[in-house]
């Protein structure tokens, strides 16, 4: 039996987690909220050693230290552009840990003859969903890290294979609930892994963030189920919090991208998606050198900058900020238009520009700036593509159809800074590139940006 003071400690930690989540949902309280959550987690990790007599304390503490060091080091070292894949990775290992814990619990079942069916059901749920979360997150990681194609991967019969694996997994779950067996549990875990891979493969690059959030909610629910199996209230409450808030967050993100969650996951399977033209088109475009663009910008009255992931990859945010400062010094009115999913995940661009110390007030959200593009003399699109692609409005069947976009096409002039004619992350061509109002400035974003900056300075 768990001592009362430890149960109270868990209660305190659970309350801290709720406050942490609440803090995270507002910009001013977010950092303290996160710190509170971290303190609660450390506190809970310490008191668990007093819950009951634990063997093997030395190797356990060693494993905690190694894991903490590895996690913290990874988190410190990662570049902000690679944030989404790191979150996916952390989520995956969490799901994997939950599945392993459940397997070990299943292993204990034969010692207690009177395992309730619901406990067994919670255990198999954790094994299967933990496996899905682990494997799905690793595939997500591979997609974001571009270790594999970012476009939907589908093969003939995938729905049948997925459906078949799903049915078998359910059957294995029932088997274990009726007749607990570790080996069936291991097979179930393998099916969970396969399902995770099959679930994420058909998801296109642009929708990957929604999947990370969904898998995050999955892991939360497995932790909640583990809490029931281990009779630990903190795990139950914390896991449920993450499961519920993660589910809501998934829906909110999908809404910001104009998608439904079901369409995100299974859209490619239905064959409705065009999967995009992967090849760069050789239609004529108008391109210009940095000096021409510098003149265009310097003599404009109103400039709107649309930053995208390419900007951050080229590490050109700092030069861009300098350019904006110089333009502002010449009396040009400049704003950044931030699409909710600019970057690789919702809110990612805000993080990336905050890193370059762009003042918060210059970042204008999509709904607030979309009416102003008509008055803009020049829109400078830096390393973005899909978020200004009119196909989202005009082409039903395009992978991004229905996603709200920035109305860059309404401006008087549009300048795209691009490395090549390669399509964006969603893998579709952008009609705006061929618009008569559009000028392309080819080259590495950082290089072009420095030339542009020097050009404007020289005027």
């Amino acid at each position, binding site marked *: 039996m768990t001592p009362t003071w430890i149960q109270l400690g868990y209660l305190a930690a659970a309350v801290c987690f709720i406050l*942490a989540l609440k803090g995270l949902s507002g*910009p001013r309280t977010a950092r303290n909220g996160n710190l509170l959550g*971290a303190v609660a987690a450390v506190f809970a990790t310490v008191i668990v050693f007093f819950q009951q007599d634990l063997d093997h304390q030395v190797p356990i503490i060693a494993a905690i230290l190694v894991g903490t060091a590895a*996690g913290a080091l990874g988190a*410190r070292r990662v570049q902000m552009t690679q944030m989404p894949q790191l979150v996916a990775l952390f989520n995956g290992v969490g799901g994997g840990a939950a599945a392993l814990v459940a397997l070990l619990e299943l292993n204990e079942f034969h010692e207690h003859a009177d395992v309730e069916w619901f406990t067994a059901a919670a255990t198999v749920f954790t094994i299967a969903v933990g496996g899905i979360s682990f494997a799905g997150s690793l595939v997500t990681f591979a997609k974001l890290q571009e270790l594999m194609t970012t476009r939907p991967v589908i093969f003939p019969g995938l729905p049948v294979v997925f459906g078949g694996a799903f049915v078998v997994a359910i059957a294995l779950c029932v088997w274990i609930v009726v007749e607990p067996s570790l080996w069936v549990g291991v097979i179930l875990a393998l099916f969970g892994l396969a399902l995770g891979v099959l679930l994420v493969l058909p998801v296109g690059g642009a929708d990957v963030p929604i999947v990370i959030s969904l898998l995050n909610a999955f892991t939360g629910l497995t932790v909640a189920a583990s809490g029931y199996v281990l009779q630990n209230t903190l795990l139950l409450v914390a896991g449920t*919090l993450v499961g519920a808030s993660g589910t809501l967050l998934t829906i909110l*993100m999908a809404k910001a991208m104009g998608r439904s969650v079901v369409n995100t996951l299974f859209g490619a399977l239905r064959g409705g998606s065009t999967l995009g033209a992967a090849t760069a088109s050789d239609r004529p475009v108008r391109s210009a050198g940095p000096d021409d663009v510098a003149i265009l910008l310097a003599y404009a009255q109103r400039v709107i900058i649309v930053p995208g992931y390419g900007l951050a990859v080229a590490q050109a945010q700092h030069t861009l900020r300098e350019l904006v400062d110089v333009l502002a010094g010449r009396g040009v009115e400049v704003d950044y238009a931030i699409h909710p999913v600019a970057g690789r995940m919702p809110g990612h661009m805000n993080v990336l520009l905050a890193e370059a110390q762009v003042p918060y007030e210059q970042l204008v959200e999509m709904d607030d700036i979309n009416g102003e593009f008509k008055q803009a003399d020049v829109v400078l699109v830096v390393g973005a593509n899909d978020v200004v692609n009119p196909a989202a409005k005009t082409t039903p069947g395009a992978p991004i159809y229905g996603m709200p976009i920035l109305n860059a096409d309404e401006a008087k002039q549009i300048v795209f800074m691009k490395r090549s004619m390669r399509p964006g992350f969603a893998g579709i061509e952008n009609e705006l590139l061929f618009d008569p109002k559009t000028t392309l400035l080819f080259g590495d974003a950082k290089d072009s940006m420095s030339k542009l900056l020097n050009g404007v300075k020289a005027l």
Partner: protein
Amino acid sequence: MDESIVWLTFFVLSAFVGVEVVSKVSSTLHTPLMSGTNAIHGIILIGAILVAGTADSTGTLIVGLVAVLLAAINMAGGFVVTDRMLEMFGGPKRTAKSETDGDAA
């Protein structure tokens, strides 16, 4: 059976709290919020510690220790990376705030 109802009550109430606390968050904070919730489910670490600490064979101990390792990576990495993001968010904002405070004074 009664005890199961108590657990179900915990579950349902926690779910409502989870939905309620993030229901009005702006898209600006979606990334840190996702990574923050991600860190919180790293609390599976205490479950991993409990099963590793009661392992009665080398095999189960090894699996338990792997679970502890993975959970610790999830928890520590999640909180640190969230803090790193929020630190940058807070930076310019806080200066702006202290400036206005200064003006008022």
